[in-house]
C-alpha cells in the first residue's frame, strides 16, 4: 500500500507499517478526514479458510498522511467493517474516528489489548 504525495515528490510505503506481508492479510482503502491529514485503512484477515470466507477480522487503522504513522482503532468481527460503521469526529486536537455498531448487527467490536489507543480515539463496545 502506497501513500503518494502529489505536491512534493515523496511516496510512503505503508506495507511494512501495516504488516501486510505477514500472513494472509488484505487491506481496503478507507476514508480521508475532512482536513485531509489522516485517512483510514481496513486491514483484514480471514478467520476461516473455506469459502465464502464469512468470518473476517478487520482492523480499523488511522494513518497520518504527513509521516505515515498508523494508529489502531478497533477490530470488527466476524464480518469486518462492511457490517459496522465509523465516522470522523472533530475534536480540539483534530479529527478522530468513532466506530459504532451497524443496525441489526449482532457482531462484536473489540480492541486488541496489545495496541495503544490514544485519548480521543473513541469507540463503542456493544
Amino acid at each position: 500500500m502506497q501513500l503518494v504525495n502529489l505536491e512534493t515528490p515523496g511516496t510512503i510505503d505503508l506495507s511494512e507499517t501495516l504488516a501486510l506481508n505477514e500472513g494472509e492479510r488484505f487491506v481496503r482503502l478507507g476514508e480521508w478526514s475532512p482536513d485531509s491529514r489522516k485517512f483510514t485503512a481496513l486491514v483484514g484477515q480471514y478467520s476461516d479458510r473455506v469459502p465464502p470466507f464469512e468470518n473476517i477480522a478487520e482492523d480499523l487503522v488511522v494513518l497520518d498522511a504527513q509521516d505515515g504513522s498508523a494508529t489502531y482503532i478497533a477490530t470488527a468481527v466476524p464480518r469486518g467493517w462492511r457490517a459496522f460503521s465509523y465516522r470522523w469526529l472533530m475534536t480540539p486536537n483534530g479529527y478522530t474516528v468513532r466506530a459504532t455498531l451497524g443496525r441489526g448487527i449482532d457482531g462484536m467490536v473489540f480492541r486488541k489489548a496489545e495496541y495503544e489507543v490514544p485519548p480521543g480515539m473513541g469507540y463503542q463496545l456493544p
Partner: protein
Amino acid sequence: MTALKRVPGRRGQIVFHGMSLSRPYHRPRAIFAALGVAVCAVAGYWTLVTTGVIQSPTRSERVGPFEVTFQSLDGYGLRGTSRTLYYHHSSRRHLIARSVGAIRFNPKDPGSVVFERCANSEGPDCGIHYFDGHRNRGWKVNDEPVIDQSVTEPVSWSTDKRFMGSLASFTCSS
C-alpha cells in the same frame, strides 16, 4: 496517352485504343491486371501496417475534460495499444503525454489525473505523473509505479487533492 471513350452507336462498349474490351481475347488480360493491382495494394498496405509505417485507426474516450486515445499497434506479430492523454481547455485539445500506462482520474475533481509514463522502463520522465487541470500543468510525483495497471483497483484521493492512497505493490505472502 491512352483514352477511354464511348463510341456513338456502340452502346455499352468501352473502347481502348480503338479496341473493344468486350472482345474475348482482351478480357483475361484486363482482369489479370486488375487482380494484380488489387493484390499489390493489399500486400503493400499490410507491409506498411506491420512495419509501423502507417498505423491503424484510433479510438478515443472522454472522461470529463480529459481525452484518452487508444492507438492499436500491430507489427512483426506483436500487438499492443498505445494510449495518449489529452486535456481539453478553452475549446482546445492539449497533449499531456504519449505512451501512458495506468490512469486514475479523480472522481471528486474532474480536472485531476494521475498517470504512469513508460511502464517497465527507466528514464527521466518515467514514473508516476500528476496533472492538475486547474493550474494547467503537471509534474512527476514518483519514480516507481505506485498505481496498478488494473483498471478496477481503486485509489483514494484526499479531500484537498494533496495525497493519494493506492493499494499497489501490496504483496501477500502466505
